């Protein structure tokens, strides 16, 4: 099997197809391999992004620096090439992300040529809200409130998010175009049907839309695409020896001096990696030796627990995603 460094847009047989005379073409077309699933997903995501840019006033891309954001940004660059994607990146920062995330964020903004807006909730900052003392309030203020503040402040009427339907039960029912009231509430009783490739973007002036171009991607699709397209991701997704402590069954990484060690707690070096990335004191790692994308995929396929298990936010209030979304969490 030949190595395939890029997602080749054309199966080999399509090249031959282009050399055929017109009468032979319709016969040949039937024999050409169909688009691969990743090509179809890619085309769908690009189509969605272009619809948003064509039909909304002031779109923005929510960029959380995770692997889904990385794929979304990559797709945006494809969708608008040779133009720079005609919207800014917005990072709703909690000040508690991993250092490696901040590094990649700044690099990607520079490479893409897009404007990067970093928003930190001034209220949460003033009150010193942190993951050690404030539990779910931390997420609430920095992320949920911070996001609303940023959207209001800049007057964005459409925001791309990297959520996938396979992540979690309540996402499976959410539309690709999800409408929010003037105060950012989601009304699950009033969702618009989405037929064919037709998205209704009409809305009242104060309303906004959250758009999920990766809705139909699975975790495996995302990883496979990162592999094929060689998309840069935060190194924390790959296993390395890192200083850790274990609390409440979660392996936490001691990423900087702000981590409050309890009496008798000393960081222990473990070979770990992360399946999802968030605020470092809230994100659980898994012990792993997987140091490359194929190895990560291998581990994922052989593993037995679902992705969100590593996120403290979901444990805090079970089945709370629906509620959080109604309040404006992405």
């Amino acid at each position, binding site marked *: *099997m030949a190595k*395939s460094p890029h997602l080749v*847009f*054309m199966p080999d047989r*399509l*090249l031959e*197809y*282009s050399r055929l005379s017109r009468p032979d*073409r*319709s016969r040949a*077309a*039937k024999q*050409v*391999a*169909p*688009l*691969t*699933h*990743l*090509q*179809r997903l890619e*085309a769908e995501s*690009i*189509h969605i992004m*272009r619809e948003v840019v*064509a039909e909304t006033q002031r779109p923005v891309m929510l960029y959380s620096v995770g692997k889904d954001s990385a794929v979304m940004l990559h797709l945006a660059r*494809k*969708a*608008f*090439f*040779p*133009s720079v994607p005609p919207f800014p990146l917005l990072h709703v920062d909690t000040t508690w992300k991993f250092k490696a995330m901040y590094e990649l964020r700044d690099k990607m903004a520079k490479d893409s040529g897009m404007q990067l807006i970093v928003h930190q909730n001034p209220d949460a900052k003033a009150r010193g809200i942190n993951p050690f003392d404030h539990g779910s309030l931390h997420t609430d203020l920095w992320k949920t409130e911070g996001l609303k503040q940023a959207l209001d402040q800049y007057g964005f009427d459409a925001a791309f998010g990297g959520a996938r339907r396979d992540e979690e*039960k309540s996402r*499976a*029912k959410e539309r690709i175009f999800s409408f929010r009231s003037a105060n950012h509430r989601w009304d*699950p*009783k*009033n*969702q*618009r*049907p989405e*037929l*064919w*490739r*037709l998205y*209704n973007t*009409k809305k009242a002036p104060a309303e906004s839309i959250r758009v999920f171009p990766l809705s*139909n991607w699975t975790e495996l699709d995302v990883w*496979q695409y990162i592999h*094929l397209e060689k998309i840069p991701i935060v190194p924390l997704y790959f296993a390395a020896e890192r200083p850790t402590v274990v609390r409440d069954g979660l392996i936490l990484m001691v990423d900087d001096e702000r981590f409050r060690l309890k009496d008798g707690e000393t960081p222990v070096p473990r070979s770990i990696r992360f399946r999802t990335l968030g605020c470092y004191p809230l994100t659980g790692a898994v012990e792993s030796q997987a140091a490359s994308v*194929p190895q990560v*995929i*291998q581990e994922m*396929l*052989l*593993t*037995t*627990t*679902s992705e969100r*298990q590593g996120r403290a936010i979901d444990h805090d209030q079970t089945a709370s995603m629906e509620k959080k979304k109604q309040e404006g969490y992405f």
Partner: protein
Amino acid sequence: MARAVPALDGGYRAQDLVARDIDAYLAAHQHQSLLRFITCGSVDDGKSTLIGRLLYDSKLIFTDQLAALEADSRRFGTQGQEIDFALLVDGLAAEREQGITIDVAYRFFATDQRKFIVADTPGHEQYTRNMVTGASTADLAVILIDARKGVLTQTRRHSYLAHLLGIRKLVLAVNKMDLVSYDQATFDAIVADYRAFAISIGITDFTALPISAFKGDNVTALSPHTPWYGGPTLIGHLETVEIDQAAGRAGPFRMPVQWVNRPNLDFRGFSGLIAGGAIKPADPVRILPSGKISQVARIVTLDGDLDVAVAGQSVTLTLTDEIDCSRGDVISVANARPQIADQFEATIVWMADEPMLPGRPYWMKLGTQLVSATVQAPKYQVNVNTLEHLAAKTLELNAIGVANLSTDRPIVFEPYQDSRDLGGFILIDKVSNATVAAGMIRFSLRRGQNLHWQPVDVGREQQAQLKNQKPAVLWLTGLSGAGKSTIANLVSKKLHRMNRHTFLLDGDNVRHGLNRDLGFTDADRVENIRRVGEVARLMTDAGLIVITAFISPFAAERRMVREMMAPGEFIEVHVDIPLAEAEARDVKGLYKKARAGQLANFTGIDSPYEAPAAPEIHIDTTKMTAEEAADLIVEALLGRA
């Protein structure tokens, strides 16, 4: 926690290969194709059990989810101590109680051959709307039948809808074979029954399988209980069935333009998703609706220029000529162009609680075109259970009907049966912004193509100049008894004295003549206003200042009339009166009658009044006399730029 072990076979994934050689596994998987399908059936048919099993056998269920499933099975399950697969996908009951819209949930699984996206639609009252939504993106439909019950009304309904939405790959899964002792005669009888029905509605081809979703027979592995069955397993069939894409690719090239890509003055590209056919550089193309001809210069992507692109791909094309082309246009192969028309016959599926109003303008989105469209009263409605054609004046939630519709400008389209992308459309309410209907164009109406606008030599400008005035429509709206007619009369008199040529269209008077065939239902009110709007427009063409006095309760119709007029010529006057005040005055005694139930559909009582959000003139009748109001209106009219 032990890892999940599929019940009957080794699952779909080559776990050995993953463990042994992940690179080989990935190389094989990157060439996988994607099949989108919909499952049709109610909970009783075992639909959730089937989907649950597909997810379970593909090992997409992790141990934490499995632990929850086992606990739920013991608590809520209907299968004794065994795992109830239905619980995996049926988290829906509680949500339904909360009133959450669950039209379609999408599930994902994969085998070593293919990726699958399943549209799962809950089978309850909203079924038609939900299934139409799910089917619109599906390549294939699995129709589930309970072997004990055979072909039912709902089987016919599901098959009809799948066929209507253009799904040409049908699978008839005769489920619960374990409960009929895997009896071949039962299976054969059901298939024969179904075949007779299928042929009657134009389904020429389907694949029938005997299965038990609960026991796993013929789902992922051939069952020892059905030695008489010689076909593939359900998964085997789904993995190998041909995907319709190839057909779309063989057709003529079409690409609706989504966005014009202009990074700098030297580059002008047209971005879109190819709806049909294939394209390569140097191919001659035609831009529609303008009809201009050009040639493809490059197919531009981030990964480098392409030599060819096919249906389903998102690309950016550059052309060899500097010609006009923008969002809403369609780039087509030069010698086989799609049609252009502004009147159509279409099948319409109504999806909103508020029924369709014939004559009301809705936004219509087809491909990347957005136009204003009105639907006429349906020619007939289809009873989805019996497939009979019924007479209908409107379409209500979940109703399917055939109707003519006309657009305010010509659009580029193809019949739905030739192209989902250029034949399928949605209708959007102009006030609520809700998606109220889905439609499929059957064909264009010839009269639309043959009716041309007759140019006249003495036009509206000449007419207005002769009268030395600017034409306008003073549109008075408000509750019955607000004083619209009184004020309108005064305005007319005042303007007449100032040598202005006016005409007063009064609601009651018009209903004695032009509109005497109309009543007071919502649909008739819409038509009433539409006709008055058209008459008012003719009068402004004649250079007149038109004064109208109609309750005109709906924002959408006032907006429709506004859009008929030249910009600035429509002046909305809200004659505002509190309902209690109007009812207290009750000059014509109508409120009393309405309250007594002798008058139906009376505005303010049992029919709504939608007050204008931003009228050009607002008259507060509690603060000024009719005389003062008339002065205010005349002043505003003559003072306008």
